[in-house]
């Protein structure tokens, strides 16, 4: 699987100098990004494309080819796949569409391709996909990427890896990260999943040292059991957004149970059962990973809110309770310590420090709250009305690591200002109070999932059931 993400030599089948040739954009982006591997163009004339040497077939390319990226009309694909097999190319990405989704003709071509895949022992990503982006080695075989358009997304290396069934979602994620403090490590667009599916990629990301969080956008799940078994082995946070709330199943059902078990309800329980965090919206795919990448996990439900505006304390309290967490009751000792700082309007939770101006006051309060036994995590809501607040938040991030407790920070300022501060100071700021609360909730969910996976693993060891399970592999 690694050769899909780190190929040393690549054939782009279909890239030519004809105007509007889509495959040529793949040669264009690999050249623009100065990818270190050898990239070859395969076209009828054998002409070079964007500086990539050209050949008329993959068979003519001298030496070993790790990966073939195929973007030609569907009816030509089976022949090319066979040639790749003969050449000894083990990894294929078919970006062309028109197979299993394209009626009986497409279906029969798909079957022909499947035959070659198993005969030559190849692995196939797609068809109908974009393939791979890897920010760490600057490899990208997405078609249609215009050089210069996503430079920020490609320039920085990140720790969040994605599995997507839509190019549009990939573009949205890359765009959104331009103003964030985390970004993409790898992205795999897997299309029709005729061979490689989401579980195979999860498995790869699980063993990948530069992936800390895994995000998925799924349109369907073909092998649910495989997904669940894979997810149970993964310790890294696994976030999934899935579309498709169908009631087709319920129409054919004879029993009441089947009538209520629609696709969505079953996917929901599969997530809960196998430790996948189910996302509520597309934007959560890029807004939530930073709580995992920059903060320790939330190990309990008890949250302390800290604000310099009383209103936000009340709003935050409502959201916390609605998300299944608790507003912690600060102990008399903690309240006495807070009182000693001499600045506070309210020493009970939510803690209101009013118009405090000294950085040390902020730090003292953060320290008192984070060190308190009765606090599992913080929801700080300080308005940035002075630059000193930013300095205090920067220190807070460090203190969270020291105490092993997370803070989901929201500053009640205009969105432009939030984005500007987040980008400039690289602080994990959330864009709304709802988003920050949700981040704490998913952090706690991940903590509970890890416990559950550990228990599951221990139970299987006790049963001597080694085949069925593997130890969750650590980050």
């Amino acid at each position, binding site marked *: 699987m690694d050769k899909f993400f780190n190929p040393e030599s690549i054939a782009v089948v279909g890239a030519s100098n004809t105007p509007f040739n889509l495959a040529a954009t793949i040669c264009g982006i690999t050249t623009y990004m100065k990818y270190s591997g050898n990239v070859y163009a395969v076209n009828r004339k054998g002409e070079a494309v964007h500086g990539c040497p050209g050949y008329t077939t993959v068979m003519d390319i001298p030496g070993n080819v790790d990966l073939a990226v195929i973007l030609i009309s569907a009816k030509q694909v089976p022949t090319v796949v066979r040639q790749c097999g003969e050449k000894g190319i083990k990894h294929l990405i078919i970006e062309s569409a028109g197979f299993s989704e394209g009626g009986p003709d497409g279906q029969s071509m798909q079957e022909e391709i499947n035959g070659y895949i198993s005969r030559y022992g190849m692995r196939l990503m797609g068809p109908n996909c974009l393939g791979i982006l890897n920010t760490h080695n600057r490899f990208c075989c997405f078609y249609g990427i215009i050089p210069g358009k996503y430079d920020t997304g490609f320039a920085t290396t990140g720790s969040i890896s994605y599995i997507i069934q839509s190019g549009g979602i990939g573009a949205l994620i890359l765009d959104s990260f331009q103003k964030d403090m985390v970004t993409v490590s790898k992205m795999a667009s897997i299309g029709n999943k005729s061979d490689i599916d989401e579980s195979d990629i999860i498995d790869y990301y699980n063993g990948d040292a530069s992936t800390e969080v895994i995000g998925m956008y799924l349109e*369907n799940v073909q092998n649910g059991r495989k997904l669940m078994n894979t997810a149970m082995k993964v310790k890294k946070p696994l976030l999934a957004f899935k579309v498709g709330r169908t009631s087709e199943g319920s129409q054919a*059902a004879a029993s*009441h*149970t089947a009538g*209520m078990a629609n696709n969505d309800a079953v*996917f929901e329980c599969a997530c809960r059962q196998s430790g996948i965090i189910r996302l509520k919206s597309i934007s959560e795919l890029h807004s939530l990973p930073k709580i995992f990448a920059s903060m320790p996990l939330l190990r309990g439900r008890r949250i302390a809110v800290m604000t310099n505006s009383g209103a936000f304390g009340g709003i935050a309290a409502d959201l916390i309770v609605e998300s299944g967490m608790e507003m912690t009751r600060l102990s008399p000792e903690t309240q006495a310590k807070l009182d000693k700082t001499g600045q506070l309007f309210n020493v009970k939770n939510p803690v209101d420090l009013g118009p405090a101006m000294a950085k040390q006051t902020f730090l003292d309060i953060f320290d008192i709250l984070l060190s308190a036994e009765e606090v599992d995590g913080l929801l700080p809501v300080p308005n940035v009305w002075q630059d000193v607040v930013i300095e205090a938040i920067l220190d807070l991030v460090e203190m969270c690591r020291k105490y092993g407790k997370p803070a989901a920070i929201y500053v009640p300022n205009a969105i432009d200002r939030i984005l500007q501060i987040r980008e400039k100071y690289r602080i994990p700021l959330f864009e709304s109070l709802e988003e920050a609360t949700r981040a704490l909730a998913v952090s706690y969910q991940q903590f509970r999932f890890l416990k559950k996976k550990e*228990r599951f693993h221990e139970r299987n060891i006790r049963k001597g059931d080694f085949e069925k399970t593997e130890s969750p592999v650590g980050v």
Partner: protein
Amino acid sequence: MKEILEKAISKKQKALSEYESKLVLAEAGVPVTREKLARTREEAVRFADEIGYPVAMKGCSHLLTHKTESGVIHLNLDSPEEVEGAFEAIEKAAGQIDGVLVQEMVKGNREFVIGLTRDPQFGPCVMFGLGGIFTEVLKDVSFRIAPLTEEDAEEMLEEIRSKELLDEFRGSPAVDRDMLVKALIGIGDLGERYDEIAEIDVNPLIVSGSRIVAVDALVILHQ
């Protein structure tokens, strides 16, 4: 259990009768009503005496999947005369039946549902929820994919909105959760072990004291 399923399939049944369904469920760890299948009026009276009054009587056949609508259910029968009357009424209302089921009347004001379905991608799924006649309207149910761990089953109980009904309720004791957990795991194992079973409905599962009892049950077979 295997024999019941094989026999039904060889007879091209689409479902098991209530009596057969409960034999399968009881073996899987789901507590069911005390009941006997009477072929004659005399047998019905004798069984009612054994089980103790009042009893319920139901026409029993794999073809009767919607009994309430067919007029083949008679409840709260208090005497041999009522049992005889009910037997005749059921014979008249129902077409071809295997016999008349004489069963204990289970008293309880809390009704739950448990069931099994198969998802094309995830395989057998177990359902737990609020039962009775409003099940489909309230849709207060939770699912887990089989096989279930004890932890999975316990989580299912916590996920329904009406979970407080499992606690002490209007003078009745809390529901025996271990019994419920065992029943849910058992239903999941049925789905795992027997491909012949397509779907299962146990509704209502009545809480009597702290015990749960399957009062009606339907096992649907694969064609």
